[in-house]
């Protein structure tokens, strides 16, 4: 209880500067903390996460609490059920501090598309925290929570983790239930943890993973995660081969990022792992492929937001006018852009040239990874082409904003697990240095490999 209260005190002091939280849930937190205190007093068995304060991205449903998805169209919406991950965390006894800021409907790479507020990067208040899970990343980085949940469709956990200097994991597609996550792109979305250490990420991930009857895309293999996630053995980790794809280390990569990632490669080599050069030849097509498939799925998933059954409703003469008006007022520019883009690529006459084509390119990108994983077990890349950019720098040019996701996107297309880990070489320097992250990509269901390497890396 005291710990919970001290977090709220710190949030009150710090969040007016950072803007990570959209809403706080003190009543719920107090009840949850009390329940844990009672268990402690009674000397009952406790889950590892009991009493641990968590912040939750505002596109996940906690019953009775707001779930705005960062959008005006859901400004007054209160969740009518708990997401499966929330159910699991409630059962584990964790304490929810509040809902964090995000780009509207998780569309963006800077959290600047939120309809409500700006979130600032705790390392430099003039810069973005990344997106779309910018609030969650900033909350962990500024100690306004121990850990947080975010969602990742094209990099929305890993990129803000890299910008804010924290750990961010995107699980294998199907490892964590999407029930209760406001859907963006159903074949790409996954929920994952933001934490300060890789060890914490392993703990939180294991708690939320698992097949769920309410999400048919969750897999029975999600039930098989075991001890090796939490207690990786060095002799097993040493046997892993790490691939460095040449296509990810090209011109345009910021010098600071390149240096930090090279240093991370050296550190991992020093653990005894073999490093190999590999190629992922279709990498450059991933951005186009993603920006066709994702908006297509978005245009379909966002059809349900019309202010009819929930959300903000305005006045209109007939039903069609009501749809158009509610959606015109309720959606921001990026949401409109992506819905229209998605509608275009799915429309008759264009479907084959765009959407059907992109689905084939997606297969090729997946095959690139399959081929590479015959030679290596884990792939190491930068997370972002640059450290955190300035607020306002990319808002007017959507394409340049999209390009900041080039290293994270292929992973979602292939459904692989990947983690962003802060590069120690930066952390060891003066705190005026902007954080840089490196990415470890694993085979399907091999979170143990990337978490294992990460856990030994952070111990160095």
């Amino acid at each position, binding site marked *: 209880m005291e710990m919970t209260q001290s977090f709220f005190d710190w949030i009150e002091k710090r969040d007016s500067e950072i803007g990570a939280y959209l809403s706080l849930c003190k009543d719920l937190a107090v009840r949850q903390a009390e329940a844990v205190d009672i268990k402690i007093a009674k000397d009952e068995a406790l889950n590892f996460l009991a009493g641990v304060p968590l912040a939750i991205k505002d596109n996940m449903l906690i*019953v009775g609490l707001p779930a705005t998805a960062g959008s005006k169209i859901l400004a007054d*919406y*209160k969740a*009518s*059920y708990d997401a499966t991950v929330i159910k699991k965390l409630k059962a584990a006894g964790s304490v929810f501090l509040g809902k964090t800021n995000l780009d509207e409907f998780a569309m963006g790479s800077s959290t600047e598309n939120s309809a409500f507020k700006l979130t600032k990067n705790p390392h430099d208040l003039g810069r973005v925290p990344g997106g779309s899970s910018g609030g969650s990343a900033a909350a962990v980085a500024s100690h306004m929570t121990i850990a947080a949940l975010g969602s990742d469709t094209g990099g929305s956990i890993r990129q803000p983790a890299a910008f804010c200097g924290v750990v961010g994991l995107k699980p294998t*597609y*199907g490892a964590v239930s999407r029930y209760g996550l406001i859907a963006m792109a*159903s*074949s*790409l979305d996954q929920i994952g943890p933001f934490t300060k250490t890789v060890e914490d990420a392993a703990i939180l991930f294991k708690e939320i993973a698992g097949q769920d009857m309410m999400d*048919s*895309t969750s*897999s029975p293999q999600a039930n098989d995660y075991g001890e090796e996630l939490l207690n990786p053995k060095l002799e097993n980790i040493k046997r892993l081969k790490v691939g460095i794809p040449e296509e990810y280390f090209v011109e345009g990569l910021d010098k600071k990022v390149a240096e930090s990632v090279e240093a991370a490669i050296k550190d991992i080599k020093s653990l005894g792992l073999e490093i190999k050069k590999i190629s992922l030849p*279709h990498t*450059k*097509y991933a*951005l*186009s*492929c993603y*920006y*066709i498939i994702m908006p297509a799925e978005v245009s379909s998933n966002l*059809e349900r937001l*019309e202010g*009819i*059954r*929930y*959300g*903000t*409703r305005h006045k*209109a003469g*007939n*039903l069609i*006018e*009501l*749809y*158009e*008006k509610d*959606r*015109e007022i309720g959606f921001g*520019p990026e949401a*409109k*852009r992506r*819905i*229209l*883009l998605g*509608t*275009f690529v799915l429309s008759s006459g264009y479907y084959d*040239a*765009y959407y059907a*084509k992109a*689905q*084939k*390119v997606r*297969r*090729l990108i*997946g095959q690139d990874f399959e081929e590479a994983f015959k030679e290596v077990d884990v792939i190491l890349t930068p997370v972002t082409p640059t450290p955190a950019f300035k607020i306002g720098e990319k808002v007017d040019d*959507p*394409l340049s904003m*999209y390009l900041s996701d080039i290293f994270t996107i292929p992973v979602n297309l292939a*459904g692989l697990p990947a983690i962003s880990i802060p590069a120690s070489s930066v952390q060891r320097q003066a705190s005026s240095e902007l954080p840089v992250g490196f990415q470890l990509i694993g085979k399907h269901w091999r979170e143990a490999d990337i978490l294992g390497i990460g856990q030994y890396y952070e111990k160095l």
Partner: protein
Amino acid sequence: MLSKKDLEHLAALARLDFKDDEGTKLRNDLGNILDYFKELQGLDTSGVEPMTGGTELKNVVREDVIGKTDDTGKGPEAFPDRQDGYLRVPPVF
């Protein structure tokens, strides 16, 4: 640049409206993005199986289980305009 007619067609399909100044920016931005996609046309994808989802899992089915419930859940509490638990909307025509 996307034509006005194309944009209006898309907006009607998506049940989305926008203000005039938004319209010009949308036509520009969408035009640029669609131009960027041209690079895909140069890629040979003949004989490639499209990937239709995030997983290769088959459909998950179970036997029908007969039940009865009058519980409409918490959903109706969120209806912006309701009467006797029913959802109220303006006329279709």
